[in-house]
């Protein structure tokens, strides 16, 4: 009995191995039939007579019938009318010495990208991506003409990562527009674009973009391999890709950067990173990402270096405040009262006298109600937004204090934490700080500052253990790479940032030339002589 069970389970294993995912059918692609009517029937059957699949029958010059098939809405109907249907109707292509397809290809179809198709799989792929298909009776081939188009959102200012200074264009949902926005910034043939279709059902276009010669080959290869091994039915946003290719899934920290800004992508490509662009979303992924990147804004590079450095210090401080502020308040009020100056301690103790809860509960009440408010604020329709702010001001504010549920000091702490959280430039890191904060609050409530310190150590160890496409997450601070420290918390002026990040880029050439530091002395003589000349003119 046991033997048979054993062999049975073995068989089951074998079966499991043999069973392949449904999408990988290695069957030879089905070839096209020769009769036009059969072809049209087959398309109708496959698409379930969907009314947006338009089949336009035509007559060729020699009486042969043909058809143009396209999907309304994703194909550019103006291009189809002008360059395909009208062209065929006017020129009446005649079948003479040359085969009809070559005539169509050479003389009739006035479109850029035209391909011949022989099997149904490719035909449907082209059709569903917005190309139009030309079928001719009696031919076992079809032509596909690139007429992708249709309506999409125009280029607008991105909603996230808003800047005061800098370009105003943002990515859209169309992959071609997005790649064009990047190409317009880096006009160089070394900017390479690789395309692949991911998603067995959705067949989403996913492109990776990098600068050959600047991006490290191993990283490009790694990104390509990770994209290729994805087996999933659908890709609806770049977040799907992000979850399938990140190094360490069990972390709250993002190991890929996402942005809506083409200038940011261009800047990162120039540092040797790889961009992953997904059709249907304005969010472009950038790999590899390092921790410090999430505290940098594109505006840092457009403004003055000293101010950018100060702002980056501020952002690091903000990050720590948004993680530790409530925890520190809890620790100080429950364990380390001696740390507070006596007068302040008396004031806080007097405020807390009416509060019936321990500091942790008080903090949790406030933090959770704030999180509720924030979530409501994001989800609510704009028209009722003002209601949220009014009610919110009551909940986290004077009313809560007067009701004796929380102390005024706690309200201040929660407000500071919330504002600090909003001030972090990258949403992905801000949201993980939101989560970690609760862990720190519990640690502080049980062990005071000892708990907080241990929490910080765990956080540091965790961050140090993360990698993004093989690159340690905390480079260039840990491991320390002194040559790359110029663009971390500190931002050196452009003329002083000579090296590309060593771990992403093989390119050892300097980014800026020597002696690029601006020097005012040369023009001084000119100015002086002009002044003297002016004086003389006035004397005359």
């Amino acid at each position: 009995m046991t033997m048979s069970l054993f062999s049975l389970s073995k068989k089951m294993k074998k079966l499991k191995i043999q069973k392949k995912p449904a999408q990988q059918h290695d069957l030879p692609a089905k070839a096209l039939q020769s009769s036009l009517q059969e072809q049209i029937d087959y398309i109708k059957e496959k698409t379930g007579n969907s009314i947006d699949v338009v089949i336009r029958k035509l007559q060729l010059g020699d009486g042969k019938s043909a058809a143009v098939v396209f999907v309304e809405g994703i194909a550019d109907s103006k291009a189809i009318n002008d360059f395909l249907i009208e062209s065929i109707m006017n020129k009446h292509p005649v079948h003479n010495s040359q085969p009809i397809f070559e005539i169509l290809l050479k003389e009739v179809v006035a479109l850029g990208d035209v391909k011949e198709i022989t099997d149904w799989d490719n035909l449907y792929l082209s059709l569903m991506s917005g190309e139009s298909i030309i079928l001719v009776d009696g031919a076992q081939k079809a032509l596909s003409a690139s007429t992708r188009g249709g309506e999409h959102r125009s280029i607008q200012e991105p909603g996230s990562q808003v800047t005061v200074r800098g370009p105003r264009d943002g990515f859209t949902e169309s992959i071609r527009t997005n790649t064009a926005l990047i190409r317009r910034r880096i006009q160089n043939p070394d900017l390479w674009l690789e395309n692949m279709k991911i998603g067995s059902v959705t067949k989403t276009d996913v492109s990776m973009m990098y600068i050959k010669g600047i991006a490290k080959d191993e990283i490009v290869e790694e990104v390509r391999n990770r994209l290729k091994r994805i087996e999933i039915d659908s890709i609806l946003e770049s977040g799907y890709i992000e979850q399938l290719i990140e190094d360490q899934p069990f972390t709250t920290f993002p190991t890929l950067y996402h942005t809506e800004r083409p200038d940011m992508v261009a800047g990162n490509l120039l540092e040797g990173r790889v961009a992953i662009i997904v059709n249907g979303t304005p969010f472009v992924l950038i790999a590899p990402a390092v921790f410090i990147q999430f505290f940098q804004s594109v505006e840092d590079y457009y403004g003055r270096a000293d101010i950018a450095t100060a702002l980056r210090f501020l952002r690091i401080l903000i990050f720590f405040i948004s993680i530790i502020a409530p925890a520190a308040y809890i620790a100080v009020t429950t364990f380390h009262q001696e740390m507070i100056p006596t007068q302040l301690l008396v004031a806080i103790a007097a405020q807390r006298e009416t509060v019936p809860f321990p500091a942790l509960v008080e903090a949790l009440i406030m933090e959770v109600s704030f999180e509720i408010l924030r979530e409501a604020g994001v989800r609510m329709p704009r028209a009722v937004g003002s209601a949220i702010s009014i009610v919110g001001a009551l909940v986290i504010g004077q009313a809560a204090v007067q009701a004796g549920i929380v102390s005024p000091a706690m309200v201040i702490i929660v407000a500071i934490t919330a504002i600090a959280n909003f001030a972090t430039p990258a949403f992905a890191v801000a949201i993980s700080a939101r989560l970690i904060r609760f862990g720190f609050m519990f640690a502080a409530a049980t062990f005071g500052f000892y708990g907080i310190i241990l929490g910080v150590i765990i956080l540091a160890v965790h961050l140090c253990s993360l990698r993004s496409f093989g690159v340690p997450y905390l480079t260039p601070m840990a491991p320390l790479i002194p040559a790359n420290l110029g663009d971390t918390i500190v931002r050196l002026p452009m003329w002083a940032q000579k090296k590309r990040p060593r771990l992403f880029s093989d390119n050892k050439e300097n980014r800026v030339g020597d002696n690029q530091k601006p020097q005012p002395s040369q023009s001084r003589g000119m100015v002086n002589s002009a002044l003297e000349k002016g004086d003389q003119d006035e004397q005359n």
Partner: protein
Amino acid sequence: MEKAKISLYQLFVLILLFELGSAILVPLAIDAKQDAWLAILSGLIGGLFLFWINYRLFLYYPELAPPEYMQKLLGKIAGTFLAFWYIIFFMYTAARVLRDFGEMLLTFAYLETPLFIVNALLMLVIIYAVSKGIEVVARTGELFFVSIYFLAITGFILIVFSGLIDLNNLKPMLEEGIFPIAKVAFTQTLYFPFGESIVFSMIFPYITKRKSVKKVGLFAIGLSGINLAITMAINIGVLGVDLASRSQFPLLSTIQSIQVAEFLERLDVFFMISMVICIFFKVSIYFYAAVAIAAVIFKIKKPSKLTYPMGMVVLFMSVTIASSYAEHLKEGLEFGTRYVHPFFLVIIPMLLLGIAFIKNRKRSSHQKI
């Protein structure tokens, strides 16, 4: 041995954090009274020599971890046996440091908390870090090193500006001649903390630039010795010999006496922050060495699997090695520094170096013929 790469800077940081670890907290070399800083510096010279011995051994076998060359030098059985004793020694020392830390935390901040809980929390963090591998520990070290030094320098400036240091406390120098200093140096400071750098021979094989190990290692140990001497001199300068020798944790007392502008006072928490971080690295490195040796001699491919069971052993050891803090200290002084330390830190490495020297001379002379 795991696959890892450690840079020279990481080695430097680790040695410095390790050496400062617990030594900066306790009344180091206080038996030499006001000349404690001199005793530390003389112990440093011996410590540099001990480091050099371990470095020479590493040069003979640059690819091998210590337990492996022990097996080569002493034979399979004796070498394994010795390596096994090193596991116990490292775990015991890790447990001792953990105990020191726990007792200190209880005396000055958490009077009512059981020792076990305090130790267990830190040990869990250490287990987590060590299970991530030596690279992660080294990178974490890099991250904290800067902040620790920043805190230390700030503290130094605050002490100087609050006018606490009385240089008269450090006089007279060499009151009873050189003998008491030499005695303290060679019975205490030589082993703790400088001789303890033997754990780094477990880390040497990971280093990519082998030639500079000596320079960086000696520099790091030298710098740590100077820092310790300065710290002890400040402690005695601020507190006086009497108070410093009676205080369990003179640095804490020194920091507690800082008062600047009626605002910067009661800075214990900053002391606690740097203390927890330093102890974390000291125990982590000891514990890592123990885990790594065990992984080598028992041929375990993933050392991280050993961290949880061995960590639990260290944790329970730290609570049970002594029934009170006084007993713990007495054990350390009378048993530890008198018998255990000389054996593991001085005699064995010298013996191994001697055998390695003879073996390799034979081999090279054979090759010449």
